[in-house]
């Protein structure tokens, strides 16, 4: 997909309800439940082997940049929003974008020596994505020198979440653990969505099994 370069201010860029998004068709990204065999826990295997998870079947993805900032807009169906965690068995809706930090990084959570960067948004902490680095299933940890914050804004309307991630195009130094974007450059990303009402968390999620190829307009 092509991320158009547009002349628009940061505030509007970060607004999932802004009218300009209507000018750019969303790329439909198919999602599937994480294979049960990849669940990194015998308990999760036993409990969810026959259970239904990964409720979201598809997400609409848009991406634009204005030369200094990049924004990703993700939209998916979620009938009833789960945006707060009050009781012990409550889980919040969540969504993540995953970017390889190495050409060899596998789509499923990276690998040793081939890390991935994950922008993890959760409905109960809605204003910024948690930035994680992972080198395999079960290894994600907060990026230690997260110098380049990713702001998020989400709205739930008409049974759908619309969420925008916004970040400076150029990662501030040190940027070893940050996804890098260059106008004219080619990039890849993957998408994951968790349904809080279904107690989805960790590997219980829907994810895009194929990379989404992204080109940034120069």
């Amino acid at each position: 997909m092509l991320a158009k370069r547009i002349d628009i201010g940061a505030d509007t860029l970060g607004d999932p309800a802004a009218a300009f998004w209507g000018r750019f068709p969303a790329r439909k990204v198919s999602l599937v439940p994480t294979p049960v065999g990849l669940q990194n826990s015998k308990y999760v295997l036993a409990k969810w082997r026959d259970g239904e998870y990964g409720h979201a079947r598809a997400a609409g993805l848009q991406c634009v940049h204005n030369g200094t900032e990049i924004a990703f807009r993700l939209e998916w169906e979620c009938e009833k929003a789960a945006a707060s965690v009050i009781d012990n068995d409550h889980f919040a809706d969540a969504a993540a974008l995953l970017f390889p930090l190495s050409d060899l990084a596998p789509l499923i959570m990276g690998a040793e020596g081939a890390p991935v960067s994950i922008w993890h948004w959760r409905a109960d902490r809605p204003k910024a994505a948690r930035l994680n680095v992972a080198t395999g299933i079960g290894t994600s940890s907060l990026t230690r020198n997260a110098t380049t914050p990713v702001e998020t804004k989400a709205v739930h309307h008409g049974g759908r979440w619309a969420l925008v991630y916004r970040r400076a195009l150029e990662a501030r130094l040190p940027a070893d653990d940050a996804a890098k974007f260059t106008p004219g450059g080619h990039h890849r990303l993957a998408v994951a969505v968790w349904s809080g009402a279904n107690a989805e968390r960790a590997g219980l999620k829907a994810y895009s099994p194929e990379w989404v190829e992204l080109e940034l307009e120069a």
Partner: protein
Amino acid sequence: MDSKEIAAWQVGREIGGEIVRPKRQLAMVFDLNKCLGCHTCSIACKTQWTREEGMEGMWWNVVNTVPGQGTPKGWEAMGGGFTPNGNARPSRIPGREEFGDAWQFNQSEVLYEGAGKEAHLTPKNFKGEKPSWGPNWEEDQGAGEYPNSYFFYFPRMCNHCTHPACLEACPRGAIHKREQDGIVLIDDQKCKGYRFCMEACPYKRIYYNHVRLVSQKCIFCFPRIEQGVAPACARQCPGRLRFVGYLDDEKGPINKLVAQWKVALPLHEEFGTQPNVYYVPPLSPPKLDADGNPIPNEPRIPLGYLESLFGPRVRDALAVVEAEKAKRSRGEPSELMDILIGYKWPDDLFPDFTKDPATLHRGGEGDA
């Protein structure tokens, strides 16, 4: 398997059908005949470890009156642990109301706002509603009909299991079992608050911290253990019923009570996690008939109930304690009675952890 090849996170896990055991295992034995239900253990733990925001409703140690639903409410029927063939048994996460949580009271209305003559202190749960349960809701309730009503106090904490269901459940490897002493710890830097551990633990002794967004539980006072100091619950116990030591120490009270005298039994062994807290079951006076006369060989606390907690071995354990007690009352020596009485405190209760915490050097401000 060569223990040198074992990584710390593997201890307590099943690998190739075998459970990787720690080099040594710390354990506790609770003599239920001595528990007076004073809750000093729970308070000792609370003041030591769970005073921070987000921990208000946490009782890593709790003393329930049984028979009863316990803490959290109905925990014994929630599942978790392992099936007899070793598969994880599905369960659920207990809710805050089931744990009891920390109630809020209208102190300022009653005490400071002039309504003290009309308003009374009333608790509200985390939803702002009248509580329906608490961590000690059934205090002194028990079961049975007068004159054969009965109950006993039942302290519970994390069992620091040899095959911890919590550890196996965590997809992040955030829970580990220490190789040097088998203490099971949650690394709150690695924990992401997924709460699979709370689901998998069949004893339901793990809490969720809604401020720090991590799961938390008893840590067997490992910083005290490392200094030769007994866990707070054990050292503070006025009934002196909590023995602490290594399972393999043949001269220590734990090994003697568990392995040699076989009077200390694990709780719900059928949950399959191999718990390391053991209980000396409670003796009870005989039942009374309609005329108020004792019925021989019919203890007030039904054996069936004790079997439901401690399994069939409880009959033998009670018989041994009864026999040794009888010996002692005839003036004969009994090693078992001497151990259970615990004449010398703290040496007889936790011989490896006798240091007085007041004598410790505490690093702090002004220290180099």
